[in-house]
């Protein structure tokens, strides 16, 4: 039982990331009708907002320390961050330590701008082109963005730790009455899940309870009629693109302490997030969120060799070729579930008839 709870918890944080990216993808597809393969790159740029802010805070000048030697035997040049020199060790050091949470504030304007520039500068020229063209241009854009990041930050993952008070892990098992050390879960992953829930809630509330949201929803249902009513729906959709970019960016910032950002992280999430969108039902925001969490949890269970062992024992498959297939289940589970769901519910979990269909 403790192992089940642990895998569910594990699935929730990965599912949170899938849900946040899929939410943005669905928003863009629902409003602009564009299949945005660069959305993973926005998640990655978000994570690099955290890296950038950390780099800005740790911008340093060098002080020669005669007591230490560098690798060549010369006096060591020690890096002294400007913020520590200007604001003192406690406040300056605190800024550096809190760079990831602060990067959320930093990322929102950056991502809104990136989203706006992307939509106005490139993607709007492809609205009337076939989906294949949109996929090609956004995929190309994703490659360009990740190469720019690699050229600037290198190929290795960059450590972006959470503030000290959120490092370490909680013994959740003890709270639930299990033995000590059976269910241990890092604090930051719990924060990530809570953060994802708040952002998802905020996006839904924005769409549901504001006039702007109402117009956007109406535009998603029937763009032409809304346009005929004299509402500039294009402008609103551009803003939605910016919001979707900001959501992906914030998801990336908060993910940075979980998985050290590298230039390729967007691609890693992108394909799976598309599967999430399709499984949830094209154009369905609740579907995207539900499918994100569902697939995250399923992937987590499929990675657990103990559970796979149970399946093998239960089906008497020991020593067979199928056993090997089941051992590799974690690599195919998402696609397998996608196939099953699309065969049984071709519009996905919450897709409705007539939405995104000609």
């Amino acid at each position, binding site marked *: 039982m*403790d192992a089940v709870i*642990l895998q569910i918890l594990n699935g929730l944080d990965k599912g949170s990331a899938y849900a946040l990216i899929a939410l943005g993808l669905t928003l863009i597809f629902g409003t602009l009708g564009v299949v945005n393969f660069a959305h993973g790159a926005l998640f990655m740029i978000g994570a690099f907002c955290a890296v950038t802010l950390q780099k800005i805070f740790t911008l340093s000048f060098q002080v020669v320390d005669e007591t230490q030697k560098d*690798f060549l035997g010369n006096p*060591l040049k020690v890096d002294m961050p400007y913020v520590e020199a200007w604001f003192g060790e406690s406040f300056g050091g605190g800024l550096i330590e809190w760079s990831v949470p602060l990067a959320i504030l930093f990322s929102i304007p950056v991502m809104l701008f990136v989203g706006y520039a992307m939509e106005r500068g490139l993607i709007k020229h492809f609205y009337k082109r076939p989906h294949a063209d949109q996929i090609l241009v956004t995929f190309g854009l994703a490659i360009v963005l990740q190469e720019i990041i690699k050229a600037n930050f290198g190929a*290795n*993952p960059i450590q972006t*730790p959470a503030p000290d008070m959120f490092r370490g892990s909680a013994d959740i098992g003890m709270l639930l009455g299990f033995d000590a050390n059976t269910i241990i879960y890092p604090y930051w992953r719990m924060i990530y899940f809570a953060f994802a829930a708040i952002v998802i809630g905020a996006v839904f509330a924005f769409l549901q309870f504001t006039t702007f949201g109402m117009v956007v929803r109406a535009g998603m249902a029937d763009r032409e009629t809304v346009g005929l009513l004299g509402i500039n729906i294009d402008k609103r959709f551009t803003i939605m693109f910016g919001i979707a970019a900001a959501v992906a960016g914030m998801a990336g910032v908060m993910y940075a302490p979980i998985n050290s950002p590298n230039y*390729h992280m967007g691609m890693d999430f992108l394909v799976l997030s598309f599967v999430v969108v399709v499984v949830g039902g094209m154009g369905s925001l609740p579907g995207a969120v539900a499918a994100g969490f569902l697939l995250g949890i399923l992937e987590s269970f499929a*990675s657990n060799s*103990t559970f796979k062992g149970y399946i093998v024992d239960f089906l008497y498959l020991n020593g067979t070729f199928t056993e090997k297939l089941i051992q590799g289940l974690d690599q195919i589970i998402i696609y397998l579930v996608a196939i099953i769901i699309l065969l049984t519910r071709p519009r996905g979990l919450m897709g409705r008839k007539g939405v995104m269909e000609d």
Partner: protein
Amino acid sequence: MSKSNITRRGALKTGAVAGAGLALPTIFTASSAAAFTNEPTGGTVTLGFNVPQTGPYADEGLDELRAQELAVQHLNGEGDGGMLNTFSSKALDGTGILGKKVQFVTGDTQTKSDAARASAKSMIEKDGAIMINGGSSSGVAVAVQGLCQDAGVMFMAGLTHSNDTTGKDRKRNGFRHFFNAYMSGAALAPVLAKAYGSERRAYHLTADYTWGWTQQESIAAATEAMGWETVNNVLTPLASTDFSSYIAPVLNSGADVLVLNHYGGNMINSLTQAVQFGLRDKMVNGKQFEIVVPLYSELMAEGAGENVQGVFGSMNWNWQLTDEGTKAFVKSFGEKYGRPPSNSAHTCYVQTLLYADAVARAGSFNPCAVVEALEGFEFDGLGNGPTLYRADDHQCFKDVLVMKGKENPANQFDILEVVEVTPRAQVEYAPDHPMFGGAEASLGECNSGA
């Protein structure tokens, strides 16, 4: 009326087959009159440096390229000469190789076998490279070694640690200076048993490709020989970035050691996440839970930051060694690039010098003559102490370093410390060892491309 059987389609087919047939023998043989592939005829000789310039190991590749460029400078008599001054063989005199100025071309392996083969092929066919050096992945090394063997050029492997490179996939035209997974296991196990005791239960997470498999097999066998028990081995996809769902089951497995058979970005992420899940703060079976990373690199350790503190691993070479060869290389490299060289940079630099030296001693660029000069070659002064290029499998035998993440690093260069220099005798094995392809493994015949 006579009817011709020649149709347009038939003619096209015949033409295509004939064309392909004519073109085939010319692959890899730029000049059919030459005695061997890419025989240098002018005043220069071209070496091909095939390293990951993009992809997950690009930082390792960049460091390798720096070292290769430095090696070429030293061969051509530029700079301070680096390890040429400390190398036991004195066949090289700083006038290039056999009087020919050394130039080089580079290729990008992208850490993908097919891309690496394509770039090596291009350097051999278009640029006339006579030797290929580099690589930061065993999958790539095995693929490129096979290609070089078929093309009739030398392959001087860079960073490749799988047993297979000089094991079941060994080739006569290929040589490896870097150590291997078996040696890591043989060097690490006694140190681990001494530090953590002989009654330990180990859980392995292993990258699912040739290097991971042989690394896991080697370290499991070596630690089991010390009395450890292997509780489980879970293969993780090479493309994984989030290892949390693989790490969580470790908590309840009864294991008290986690062995991460991961490299590069995989290792940075899996180690960081294992620490996040509080594994190192745990007490299991009355013992402190420990993490082991069998293969270390400076660049990886830098990426994992403070998470490497106190973690054991092994290395082929480290810039902190105090022998004259190491000092000379670190000085040349450090003054040129402002940073100490990594162990992948070192192996590429040394391999380039060893190749050039073998050509000089053989008096010929013919790969078969170079192979002969390298087989059984004993040398010193290149940073690893007395070293042997064993003729049976083209593997270098030398001391191995056991490393540990420093508990209180004083500065950015002070991340790892050398715990033990394991003597060569302790990491030696028979050429027909079962982990290295057994009795069937063979180098095959030398191919000069003639």
